[in-house]
């Protein structure tokens, strides 16, 4: 994966840059030595590492504004970083850029249970929000599996999901407001404690913009009352078709579970060997479902789902009768990635979404691709919403193996798009899928998105090299091409 070549002019300004930053943040919040910068050289896409020119850790919005203004004046690139948990390289530094770390923005500013929202700084962890409000019976619903470590600012940038987004939506459906700093230093507020935008939905636009449109400095999130009960079901099937059919039937019955996950045989075996959760080893596919809500509703739905599963040939059908048992059903699924990871020196976690009903077909084709490329793949699937996580096993120490794993991953994502899905369901494009964007979008589609970028950051200083495969000058992008257009139907009657 190629990153833009470091600009010698930027590198030449390093001393001037550092002097400028020293005037904005205390010395302790500026890291310019190799050892100090090392922890920032990569995120969770650890195969790719780059040391930035300097790392700066601002503590308030005014500092962020002044830092961006300085970088714009010097034409120096900026890469924002939250928890550093991105699986797509979203916060991979640039060698000729500043790494803007938001970790010091770690306070919960306000919890408002009347208006059911919380105002927090972007460096607060996803789970940290829930922890701040659970005493009052509330929680913040989107739950990416990295929630202990990922930051809410990063969640906004990636529009993160998680197991429960099937019922409760993604980050974008749970955000009320954001304070945002543009590359020219301007501070803008989108939304607030009220619902809906007064004009264009710019809040929706910047959510999932992967650090390319601005820097998040404050977040207002929607809180929900914690459901009084949650029960789990562990359902084993003799075939992937049966499991997929069960998912379709559940939806067709009008039931939207809080969570509905699927694991294939390889993933089940790996997880069981790793944590001994009690998963059945003789099934082709396992569904882990969660139903939450008021007790009467949960009991009603559990009975309905059980019947649906049995009608779809489920050979294993366990329903949790205690919180401990519910957690045990999830233990294997939560450990699936490290469990699969323990089978090989390295693994790639892919992230595509497909229409649910194509699942069995896609899994078969992934198996064929796996054979063709000579690398093992285990599959974990957010069955409820079609988001697929094929886990490609490889050994980066072997020559070419990283490239081969990436090639297999790319083929899998092309397959996702081919069957009517998308390249990424929750991890973001970052650098990982950047070069596959033309698989999903035409040049016109991409150029229209780039024009949006130009409206926010005309100099392309924020996170260049991520998401879009080619950089264009904004002036070029603005030009209209005269087409010699004719009104297309001169012989239609006039009204």
């Amino acid at each position, binding site marked *: 994966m190629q990153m833009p070549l470091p600009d010698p002019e930027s590198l030449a300004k390093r001393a001037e840059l550092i002097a400028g930053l020293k005037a904005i943040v205390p010395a302790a919040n500026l890291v310019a030595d190799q050892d100090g910068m090392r922890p920032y050289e990569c995120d969770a896409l650890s195969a790719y590492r780059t040391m930035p020119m300097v790392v700066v850790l601002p503590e308030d919005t005014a500092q962020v504004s002044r830092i961006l203004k300085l970088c714009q004046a010097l034409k120096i690139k900026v890469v924002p970083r939250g928890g550093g948990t991105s699986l797509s390289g979203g916060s991979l530094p640039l060698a000729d850029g500043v790494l803007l770390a938001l970790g010091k923005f770690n306070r919960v500013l306000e919890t408002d249970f009347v208006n059911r929202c919380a105002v927090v700084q972007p460096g607060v962890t996803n789970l940290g929000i829930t922890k701040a409000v659970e005493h009052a019976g509330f929680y913040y619903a989107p739950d990416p599996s990295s929630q202990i470590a990922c930051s809410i600012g990063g969640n906004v940038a990636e529009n993160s999901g998680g197991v429960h987004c099937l019922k409760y939506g993604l980050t974008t459906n749970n955000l009320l407001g954001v304070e945002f700093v543009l590359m020219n230093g301007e501070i803008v507020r989108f939304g607030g404690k009220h619902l809906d935008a007064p004009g264009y939905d710019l809040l929706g636009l910047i959510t999932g913009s992967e650090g390319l449109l601005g820097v998040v400095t404050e977040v207002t999130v929607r809180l929900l009352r914690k459901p009084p009960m949650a029960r789990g079901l562990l359902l084993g099937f003799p075939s992937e078709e049966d499991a997929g059919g069960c998912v379709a039937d559940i939806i067709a019955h009008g039931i939207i579970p809080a969570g509905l996950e699927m694991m294939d045989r390889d993933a089940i075996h790996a997880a069981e060997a790793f944590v001994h959760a009690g998963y059945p080893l003789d099934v082709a596919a396992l569904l882990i479902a969660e139903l939450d809500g008021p007790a009467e509703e949960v009991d009603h739905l559990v009975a309905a789902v059980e019947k649906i599963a049995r009608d779809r040939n489920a050979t294993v059908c366990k329903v949790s009768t205690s919180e401990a048992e519910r957690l045990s059903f999830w233990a294997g699924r939560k450990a699936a990635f490290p469990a699969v990871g323990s089978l090989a020196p390295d693994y790639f976690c892919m992230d595509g979404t497909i229409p649910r009903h194509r699942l069995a077909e896609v899994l078969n084709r992934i198996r064929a691709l796996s054979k063709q490329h000579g690398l093992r793949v285990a599959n974990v699937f957010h069955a409820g919403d*079609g988001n697929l996580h094929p886990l490609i096993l490889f050994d980066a120490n072997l020559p070419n193996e990283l490239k081969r794993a990436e090639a297999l991953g790319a083929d899998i994502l092309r397959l996702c798009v081919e069957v009517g899905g998308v390249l990424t369901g929750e991890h973001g494009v970052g650098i990982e899928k950047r070069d596959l964007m033309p698989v999903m979008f035409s040049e016109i589609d991409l150029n229209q998105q780039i024009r949006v970028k130009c409206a926010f950051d005309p100099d392309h200083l924020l996170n260049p090299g991520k998401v879009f495969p080619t950089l264009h000058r904004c002036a070029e992008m603005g030009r209209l091409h005269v087409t010699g257009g004719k009104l297309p139907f001169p012989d239609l009657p006039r009204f």
Partner: protein
Amino acid sequence: MSEVIQPRNAAELTDTIAWAVEHDQALRIDAGCSKAEFGHAVANARPLDLKAMRGVILYEPEELVLSAAPATPLSEIEAVLAQRNQMLAFEPPDFTALLGKSGATIGGLVACNLSGPRRLSAGALRDHLLGFQATSGRGERFKSGGRVMKNVTGYDLSKLMAGSFGTLAVLDEITIKVLPAPEKTRTVLAFALDDAAGVALLCRAMGEPVEVSGAAHLPASVAARSAVDYVRNARASVTALRLEGPGPSVEARCQHLRATIGTAVATEELHSVNAVALWRELRDVTLLAEPRDRIVWRLSLPPSEAARVVAAIRANNPNAEVFYDWSGGLVWLSLPASAAMGNDASEMLVRGAVNNHGHATLIRAPSDMRARVRVFQPLAPALAALTARVKDAFDPKNILNPGRMG
């Protein structure tokens, strides 16, 4: 500006807009025209009528997805969904009573981002828009999103299209998420609470584990106009909380909710037919539709501010009528069209009361008033500049619905 252009398909639509771009010809985008008088008037523009671009293109109930052409009537979509016990969870309103014209289309709804009472729990229209194909004001056909909910590939332009009043691009294909319709609907009513107490009760109920899917408060004078007996004959304010879902669940939750409210406040329960009727009245703002010459505003506020803002407006205009939806997050306000009041002074009154807690949009007013006041909330300078640049990214010559949003 005479002749109406009526493209039959996406290719003709794109060709038309490309032609308009080249000839600097502004276009007014029309579908059902039921909300033509919402927003500022589009002057000096040739009508582009999408009425031939209608029909459901794709509907897969088990995939919870439906795609349709922009001029597909809402009624057609809802009928198709009803056959499979599904719905548009964001509960799009029908403003026939309010604005006087029927014929809502999916394109118009998306352009205005209109959602009803269930927006509170299920999300707004923009939360259900999965993807689209459109032609920009540059005359280029482009797409964004897809047909799946879990999609973070590229910028979320669907959110931008929703509520952009046709000023960025003209949609030719709209893909939305659909959801199962609830099996049962009940509504718990509480009576005789003043505005502040009513909204406070709504907020309290939202914090209870009963999954409220509609939370509204009707002051007595507005409740008196309802067609639902229990509401009209209450002769008092009515605070309404909707519970939907499987039968046994709804029953149990109603009981829990009434127990939570306690016995100091009188409560009642509306069963399905009446419950559905009441929420439809609230969804469609029927109760403020008459008399037809009254000015109607829509305020978006944090619930904790709602009663106070309304009180400030009432202090200056005792003839103001309101009801609260979205647990107090949405206030529908009607003001008399009296010459003495001065229609324009109402803007200062309303915007002054709202201050910077939220925003206010003028929904219904005579065309001369809409020409003079700001229909949409004025934006802070940096936001206004950014908005202009975003518009420029899609429609640099300002040919699509120029001036519609001010």
